[in-house]
């Protein structure tokens, strides 16, 4: 079965699907590009500047650091999460359920697997763009160093795929667009607030901290803060991110297949 999966992989097909999205994106780039880019930046300055006088400094892993410097890497994580997840969950869902773009593409030589990975790569691309723009803003603002990019860029890259896969898994599981609210308000929004983005997770009660630490965004923001103070578990967290990417991609791939063909891949 895995053999057939890789056998059907075709990079040009994946690119052709990705390129369709780029064509649309370029035609509407202003409305597409600006709001999502400015969102984490407003969070950074809105929360950061507003709360900075009250909080001043935070204690993170025993280090005392300026609040704005603390939340800056968190905002990179939030940007990646929101952009990849929402492109996959809303954008791909509309193309699948309403515009029937998936169904139209499936009449061509592009097979299901290549179409799926084209969608995944596009949603990840939007996360990568958002993560990079936010990184540049925090570097220019002096909340991170230029060398931090060496760490940020590979992390942004891999975690964009993780959250894109999460968004695609959501569309594989839901039938109506309203049902997107469930994962959005029960998982994505709480995760963006509680995963150690705006404050250290150690401020939370023990039991909650333990649960929240399992969320994919927690691992990401911890490693993004590597240059502030390396988390003792960073190695494990990196493996965790890779495991999430593989698991979520596989589940999304299988569940959307079931939705389109009424047949679950691998499970019969």
């Amino acid at each position: 079965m895995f053999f057939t999966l890789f056998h059907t992989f075709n990079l040009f097909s994946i690119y052709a699907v990705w390129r369709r999205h780029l064509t649309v994106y370029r035609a509407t780039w202003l409305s597409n590009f600006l709001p999502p880019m400015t969102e984490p930046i407003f969070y950074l300055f809105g929360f950061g500047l507003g709360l900075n006088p009250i909080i001043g400094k935070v204690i993170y892993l025993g280090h005392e650091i300026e609040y704005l410097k603390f939340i800056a890497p968190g905002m990179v994580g939030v940007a990646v999460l929101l952009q990849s997840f929402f492109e996959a969950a809303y954008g791909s869902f509309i193309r699948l359920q309403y515009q029937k773009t998936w169904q139209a593409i499936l009449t061509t030589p592009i097979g299901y697997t290549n179409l799926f990975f084209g969608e995944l790569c596009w949603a990840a691309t939007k996360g990568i763009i958002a993560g990079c723009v936010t990184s540049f803003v925090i570097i220019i603002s002096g909340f991170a160093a230029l060398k931090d990019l060496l760490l940020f860029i590979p992390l942004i890259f891999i975690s964009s795929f993780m959250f894109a896969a999460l968004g695609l898994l959501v569309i594989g599981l839901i039938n109506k667009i309203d049902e997107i609210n469930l994962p959005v308000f029960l998982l994505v929004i709480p995760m963006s607030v509680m995963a150690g983005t705006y404050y250290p997770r150690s401020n939370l009660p023990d039991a909650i901290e333990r649960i929240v630490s399992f969320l994919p965004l927690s691992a990401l923001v911890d490693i993004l803060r590597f240059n502030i103070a390396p988390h003792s578990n960073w190695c494990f967290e990196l493996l965790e991110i890779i495991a999430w990417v593989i698991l979520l991609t596989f589940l999304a791939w299988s569940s959307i297949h079931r939705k389109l063909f009424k047949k679950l891949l691998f499970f019969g």
Partner: protein
Amino acid sequence: MQLIAKNLHKKFKDFKAVDSFSFELNAGEVLGLLGPNGAGKTTIIGMLYGAVIPDAGEITLGEFNLLSGQASKAKQFMGVVTQENNLDPDLTVYQNLIVFSRFYGITGKKAEERVNYLLKLTNLIHKKDSNVEELSGGMKRKLILARSLVASPKFIFLDEPTTGLDPDARQDLWKLVNHLRNEGVSILLTTHYMDEAERLCDRIILLQNGKTIDAGSPSEMILKKIGKTVIEIYGVSQDQVQGVAEKYNLWWREFADGFLIALPDQINTLLEELKLLNATNIKERDANLEDVFLKLTGEKLN
């Protein structure tokens, strides 16, 4: 190159959509798949391009086995016009075709030339930069047909290409189908319009409950199943019609608010006899494919 489907089966829960269906589509042939709603036409076309996975059966296109990993290769030779309008509303008319060309691996100058040719062929060149939502129903169908032709396919599947179109737009599409036939393209067509099937198809398969109930060329089927002539009669009672029909052992059925009776050549007294019934209207006309459809699907339902 030939498309061969053997023993296709598909069940949706307890409903048998396609039941042991086999057919061949030969090079340069226009084959019509006809049948009432729910007969399995769209499911069968879906199986051919991979949208529906059959429970059992075999489909080959030339050397390619469509159900065992060679579908992508086979689809290079296929164009599909789906029943629903799934044009890309995020793209212009021109972009729709360019983006689709890329899905077939056609890019750059080659794609541009082909797309411009197809837009001229379908009379859509003046709408090149329009959004697809601005097109009329007929233009949308023509654009979907143009889209299915980007890779110069040898096989085209048209799933109800003219449903909902006005007569002008319909014959516009017929012209394109005939143009493709003349170029040697093999065409599989489903339609609810019997006049359309009679006009376009070399051969017809009549489907009901996912099974073939009859097949042949339109003229053959009409002659074999109905004869040359039928009579439409209005303003008489069912008993009267039934009496006459049973006397001569003829096929008859209700038709709108009147009745339809097959009129064999050798019975010249029948018309006289019917005239004695004081009907409000009697019309003698050539038998057509719609009569065949009504006869065969009616028989099976009873």
